[in-house]
């Protein structure tokens, strides 16, 4: 028997998580692991067969075939993740009626001028989308607060309908819902329009984060969500929860808020640690603090599930899908190479085109580098030097730290975050917030998955749902 290369990590329960470049994984207990390291085999024959089937060891006769299979898998994985399958984002306006604490760079005042998309650009944007990829198209309307320019959103929809054909696209509007009204609802009713909104906990926490002059962000959101659920159905609304310091203390508030609104699926993530304003500390809290919070949140969600309330936490689902589902690379923020440009093309209000939401934000803080791939009229995705460099430096397989990490096949890389915090795209993983967050999520979730069968069944449902 010959052992083949693999990485491993010790989980909380004491089990050892193994993975190889092909993306196979296995979980051994300490004594099995020791035997395996000692003699390339454990005393458990079924386990040995499994380890061999997953290419952690090979019999000598078939070594070349096993090695060929490993490299074939790696090639297949890289090709899959290199596929150009973008979500198209359009920013109709940077203006916003909110002045949220953590959003300094991606907004302008509601009354400001010069922050709106030229209506004449819409038809070119849509034809560019059509030229760039085959259907189906997912178009995400970002902001600012896009509902300030409902006229532009309607124009985008109409253009999409005529150029991309109905049935070939869907429009997701990312909004605080504060400006939602009945006319928008009835417009959306028979159209492929979906809403995505930030929900930062119940009234008190949400309003403390999401600052409206009228101080009623939560009440407005609640009313709008209720109307969407009544009029359009549960599949038309999704939430994102960004965890701020104040929310860290109140994981139940997130669950309660979702239950209160009648939404079962939540998507909870730490605040992005971009050091945009140099005066602010790079993050508000450590990932260790976040994980304490997340564990409480997770446990409560699982408890609800066991009591028959089928809540889903999507961050967990995404991390597990990366491990469990071969070829899953749909989530732009957790893949390698990074999803920059490959999974996102963003049309900014000023006609500039970016490879992600983060690059347009980087642009606002680092003015002297052009982070765009040109204007929509003079677009050059392939020849763009900066993106070539960013994407080629985002293969975590060869990153110091990642190359020995058990989660490398499932993890990703975030060149923009590393540029913003460390001034270069690869990042020192020992200091990287991206690394700390994902490593801890993988560790935590896989530990629960393997050490607790009832939880595993719930997590399986999340992955397949």
């Amino acid at each position: 028997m010959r052992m083949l290369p693999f990485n491993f990590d010790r989980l909380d329960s004491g089990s050892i998580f193994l993975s190889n470049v092909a993306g196979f994984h296995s979980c051994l207990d300490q004594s099995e692991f020791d035997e395996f390291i000692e003699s390339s085999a454990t005393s458990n024959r079924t386990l040995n067969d499994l380890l061999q089937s997953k290419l952690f060891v090979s019999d000598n006769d078939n070594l070349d075939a096993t090695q060929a299979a490993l490299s074939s898998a790696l090639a297949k994985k890289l090709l899959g993740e290199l596929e150009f399958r973008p979500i198209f984002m359009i920013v109709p306006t940077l203006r916003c009626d909110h002045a949220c604490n953590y959003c300094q760079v991606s907004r302008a005042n509601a009354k400001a001028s010069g922050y709106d998309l030229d209506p004449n650009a819409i038809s070119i944007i849509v034809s560019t989308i059509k030229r760039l990829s085959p259907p189906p198209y997912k178009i995400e309307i970002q902001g600012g607060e896009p509902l300030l320019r409902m006229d532009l959103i309607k124009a985008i929809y109409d253009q999409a309908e005529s150029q991309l054909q109905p049935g070939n696209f869907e429009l997701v509007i990312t909004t605080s819902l504060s400006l939602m009204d009945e006319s928008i609802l009835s417009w959306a009713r028979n159209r492929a329009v979906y809403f995505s909104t930030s929900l930062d906990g119940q009234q008190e926490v949400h309003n403390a984060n999401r600052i409206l002059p009228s101080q009623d962000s939560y009440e407005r959101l609640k009313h709008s969500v209720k109307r969407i659920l009544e009029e359009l159905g549960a599949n038309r609304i999704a939430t994102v929860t960004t965890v701020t310091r104040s929310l860290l203390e109140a994981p139940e508030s997130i669950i309660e808020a979702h239950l209160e609104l009648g939404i079962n699926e939540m998507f909870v993530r730490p605040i992005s640690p971009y050091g945009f304003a140099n005066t602010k500390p790079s993050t508000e809290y450590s990932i260790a603090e976040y994980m304490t919070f997340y564990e409480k949140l997770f446990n409560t969600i699982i408890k609800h599930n066991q009591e028959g309330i089928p809540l889903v936490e999507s961050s967990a689902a995404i991390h597990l899908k990366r491990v469990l589902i071969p070829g899953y690379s749909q989530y732009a923020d957790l893949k390698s190479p990074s999803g920059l440009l490959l999974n996102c093309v963003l049309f900014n209000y000023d006609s500039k085109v970016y490879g992600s939401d983060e690059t347009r934000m980087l642009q606002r803080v680092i003015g002297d580098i052009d982070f765009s791939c040109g204007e929509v009229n003079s677009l050059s995705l392939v020849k763009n030097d900066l993106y070539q460099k960013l994407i080629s430096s985002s293969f975590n397989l060869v990153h110091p730290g990642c190359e020995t990490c058990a989660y490398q096949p499932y993890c990703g890389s975030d060149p923009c975050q590393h540029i913003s915090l460390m001034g270069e795209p690869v990042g020192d993983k020992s200091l990287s917030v991206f690394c700390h967050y994902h490593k801890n999520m993988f560790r935590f979730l896989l530990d629960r998955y393997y050490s607790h069968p009832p939880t595993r069944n719930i997590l399986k449902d999340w992955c397949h749902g």
Partner: protein
Amino acid sequence: MVETIRKDVFQLPPENPIAAGHYLLRTTVPDSSNHYLNQILIKDDVYSPKPNSQCITGVVRSSGLLGNISDGDIGVVNANGTLRVILSRNANHNTVLVTERCNNRCLFCSQPPKERDDDHLLVQAGLAIAAFQSDDIIGISGGEPLLYREKFLRFLDFVILHAPSTSLHILSNGRAFSDTGFASEIAKRCQDTSITFGIPLYSILGSNHDRLVGAHGAYRDTINGLINAGNLGIPIELRIIPTQQNYKDISTIVEFSSRCLSNIVQVSIMNLEPTGWAKNSWHNLYLSPSSYLDDLRNGIEAAIEASLPVCLFNFPLCHIPEDLWPYAVQSISDWKNYYPNECSQCQLKSKCPGYFTSSRGKFHHPPRRIEQCVNGT
């Protein structure tokens, strides 16, 4: 005699013998000769003189045969005076055997390999396919068709040229694809016509696969072959036959295919067929699906997870639980397919794969009662 769904072998009346060979069977007098095969006219039993036509080489008077064929079917006449319909317009599957030679010795081979030279089969298969002119799929089986190497490439060229609308499904053990040069020659031809290769993989434990296929080194070749073929863009139907020796490997085979192989267009899990060599070691091989349901389910789940289409072949519906029915397909070629008497009352019959005619007697696992369906309650 068991009633098969479609009869395919007929004893020819002795009065006017037909020379052995492949023929295009006609029910009406053709007005031109066929480029590829001689034509024989099939009439009913009532005597009528041989039509005066240059285009036919003989007449067979048999109502039984006439009632079972369509104009343009292909038949093979053997020296012992039987006619077997090999390509039938009424059949649900048409398969042509191109060789009986093989470099594997699978414990359950339904067509146990012979050593003798049988190149003529390949030539005749090409002619038969060309004469048949189908726009459907024709199965190519063996033996191991790819042992022909260069000659097989010529055969494909011939079919592509002379029967351009015919698609091919080729059963192979995939070993020949370990030769990258040969695999790329096949891949080129896959661009010109629709060709799929059905290739079995019985385990990711090399020794287990080798034991089941009775050939040392087969696993290496098949794995390298599958990798090459997939990477070159040859569409592959991956076949798994669960037996007592490998039923635990179903889901690892599926995970392996989804991670390491490309161009797998379908995973087929096939219930063992009690023909050929499988009969000899039936009791060491066959396992009732009910005893490995979890393995079956995990395999199906793994395929679904990886977005690989997955099908169960040859599983009578009453042998698997209802949640697996959506994956079961009617697969058994109709000339070897039958439904025992117990099935006549079964409401699932129209959707059920039924049984192999060869599964009579000691190989038979009787239909089971499906509470909610059989009596329509």
